[in-house]
């Protein structure tokens, strides 16, 4: 029996709406924004501090500084020594970390609900009291270079992604990696990190998101106590950034040690700006699902199972971003299949969707999967906080989350066809090809030599 999709829509919509009805939003006089969502399923809480600054705010020569500063935020303040933050949270049974993206920088703690004030006190302290010590910086910049080696230099598929972005964008700062170019990391000084901190870290550039077993009035009272006294700062103006229109396919090839060719394609597409009125981003998200979102998607069915040109293939689109949107398609060639054969196959499938759209069955399936994902996200306090913080940090209200399920549901076959025809075109395409090289050029194809000591 085929499940009634109407029932799924109804169940998912009711849940998503009910869950979204609850977030509470507050603003402190110093400009700090606070979003609190109650969820009493477990006696824990997630506390995230979102700064509206990421690697896209960097300028040439200091790429990577947003992320380096994130590392330095664990290195002590006027009140606490290096590493104290982590030690105190750990002893309170908490987990903490941080991440930097192109669009924002986020610090987070997961902890028993009774210890939320502790997390707030420490985050408020490092929002304004950070000390960037030259000797700590000297160690930490080495750690970040090791991170770059681990995550990019020695990972051909990540390096290919870096190459893809550097090729797709001529002007927009999305062309530079968040981790930073190695040369910029080598040239970075502690004063670069400090300048970044002074420029961007202030309550009026931050949103605090709290999800968990809490009462909003209590959280507000604590937020006033810990964050309320921090001084507002004047933020630098932000220039409007735009990528000039692309008019033709761009290509890049990367040679790196690997066994199989790997491809990553990117199409320039819109990102969500107005959740109430935009429809194209929702249509593109559903196209991504139909192309590469599951075993039932076209890429897997055709490239992996039928033609066997690929061992795996996927599609990825971020609905929400501060900068331009991109639809990414990736695939690894099967043994004995060439990169060009795989590229032809991927582009043929895309061209067909651009010409004909997708079937009503595929559209219904993609919608069910998107709506289910929204429901499944409710299982995790952390994922719920990410959803709220992300919307806020790109300048959309968290209330947009309310509408997202309904907007997905309303997309028609005709809209998908129109969005596909407009954006899945060669002129906005960038192709990145990993050209695999033998590990040892002298004995191509042989296993790496092993020596025992």
């Amino acid at each position: 029996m085929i499940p009634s999709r109407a029932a799924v829509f109804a169940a998912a919509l009711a849940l998503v709406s009910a869950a979204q009805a609850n977030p509470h939003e507050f603003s402190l006089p110093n400009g700090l924004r606070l979003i609190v969502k109650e969820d009493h399923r477990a006696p824990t809480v997630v506390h995230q501090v979102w700064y509206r600054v990421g690697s896209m705010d960097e300028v040439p020569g200091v790429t990577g500084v947003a992320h380096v500063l994130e590392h330095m935020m664990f290195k002590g303040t006027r009140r606490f020594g290096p590493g104290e933050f982590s030690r105190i949270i750990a002893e309170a049974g908490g987990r903490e970390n941080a991440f930097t993206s192109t669009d924002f920088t986020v610090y987070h703690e997961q902890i028993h609900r009774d210890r939320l004030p502790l997390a707030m006190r420490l985050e408020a302290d490092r929002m304004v009291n950070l000390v960037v010590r030259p000797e700590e910086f000297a160690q930490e910049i080495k750690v970040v270079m090791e991170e770059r080696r681990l995550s990019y230099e020695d990972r051909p598929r990540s390096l290919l992604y870096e190459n893809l972005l550097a090729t797709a964008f001529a002007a927009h700062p999305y062309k530079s990696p968040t981790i930073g170019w190695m040369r910029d990391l080598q040239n970075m000084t502690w004063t670069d990190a400090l300048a970044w901190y002074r420029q961007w870290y202030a309550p009026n550039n931050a949103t605090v998101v709290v999800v968990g077993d809490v009462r909003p009035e209590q959280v507000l009272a604590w937020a006033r106590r810990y964050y309320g006294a921090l001084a507002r700062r004047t933020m630098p103006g932000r220039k409007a950034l735009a990528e000039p229109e692309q008019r033709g396919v761009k290509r890049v090839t990367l040679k790196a040690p690997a066994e199989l060719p790997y491809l990553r394609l990117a199409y320039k597409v819109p990102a969500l700006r107005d959740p109430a009125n935009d429809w194209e981003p929702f249509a593109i998200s559903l196209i991504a699902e139909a192309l590469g979102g599951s075993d039932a998607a076209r890429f897997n069915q055709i490239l992996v199972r039928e033609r066997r040109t690929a061992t795996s293939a996927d599609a990825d689109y971020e609905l929400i971003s501060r900068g331009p949107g991109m639809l990414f398609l990736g695939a690894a060639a099967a043994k004995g299949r060439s990169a060009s054969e795989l590229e032809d196959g991927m582009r043929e499938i895309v061209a067909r969707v651009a010409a004909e759209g997708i079937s009503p069955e595929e559209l219904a399936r993609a919608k069910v999967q998107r709506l289910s994902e929204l429901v499944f996200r409710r299982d995790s306090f952390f994922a719920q906080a990410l959803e709220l913080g992300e919307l806020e940090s790109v300048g959309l209200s968290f209330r947009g989350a309310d509408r997202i399920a309904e907007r997905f549901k309303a997309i028609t076959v005709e809209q998908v066809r129109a969005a596909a025809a407009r954006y899945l075109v060669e002129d906005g395409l960038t192709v990145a090809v990993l050209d695999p090289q033998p590990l040892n050029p002298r004995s191509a194809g042989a296993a790496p030599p092993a020596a025992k000591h």
Partner: protein
Amino acid sequence: MTLIALSLPADARVKIDHWIAQSGARVYLVESHALPIVDIAVEFAAGSAYDPREKAGLARLTLAMLKAGSSRYSESEASRRIADAGAELRENFDVDRAGFALRSLSSEAERKAATDTLADMLQSPRFPADAFERERARAVANILEAETQPDRVAERRLYALMYPEHPYGLSASPASLAAIAREDLERHYRTRYGSMQAVVTIVGDLSRDAARTLAEELTSRLAQGERYALAPVAPSPPTETLRIAHPSAQSHVLLGVAALSYGDPDYFPLLVGNYVLGGSGLVSRIFREVRDKRGYAYSAYSYLRPYQRAGPFLVGLQTRRDQAREALELARTVVAEFVARGPTEAELNAARKSLVGGFPLRIDTNRKVLEQLALIGFYGLPLDWLDAYPARVRSVTLAQIRSAFARRVDPGKLSVVVVGAPD
């Protein structure tokens, strides 16, 4: 402060329902109706440790092939049914276990479409020859790709050193995959995917009655299967350092020794001790010495991975290749120093507080509860395993940690692999 950190909140408890299905499968249920989601795992003692040595890769391939078509649904139909229900199906696979985790909406039509598909995959796979050749080719491609990746090479070689005779050290090769015939899959399936070995775990929005019915639907058509006791791990082999050339910018350094199984009395002393040594993320000794003080690595850690038989204690880091020797010596020194003296009193207290205070974070989502429940079910841990956890952590003493590490983590018996450094 101490009081809060050391007392377990009454609401951080998990109420486990357990019964044996008519099929013989062990069933574990935690009901939670706050969200319209149900998570289901079905697992068998059918991991890579059950591979014949010359056919390594058989167990993994068998699991992948369960999705490739069953008596009622073709491969594509099964994929579509799962996707149409909005469900997610994942393969769970390690040395001991093989099975699936299914996450579905709990509304009846969707849940039934998803579990009905899973039930057919598990109980009447067809192992079509054509898909078998494709999946084998994919497995070969993945192995060849992994052989170019320094982290994967290091891990594979370390397991071979730690477990020279034991099947935990096995890994598939193109040759071992080529030796597998379709009949081997059928035999592995028939003997290892037996109802008597099946463990069904269910967490979420499903009533006990519905869970009873579901557990039968998922297992009643299975053969009984054969009992097979995995051999114990032989005493540690002589220590070796294996250096493998690789053109990577970093050397990947791994040290390890077979150390711990579930049900072992040293479990909690080793767990608490390892928290101090390298298990506590940003505050462990290894992290402090390797990363904070010297900037050698981004990631530096140690962990214990208990299995049915002695699973590994493992230390890992990656560093610029010209400083790999120094970093390896440092890691050895930190481990040796810890094994010789144990944690300080202050470190032990901090570890206890952190592990006890952080316990609610281990069970604050349905998915985390499912993972814990699956461990309890598969390894036959007591039903009060989670409830007793804080008290058992609290009761660990300095003497117990020293004794457990001295016996289980002999620094002289650590196998070492360095991938990247040419010398």
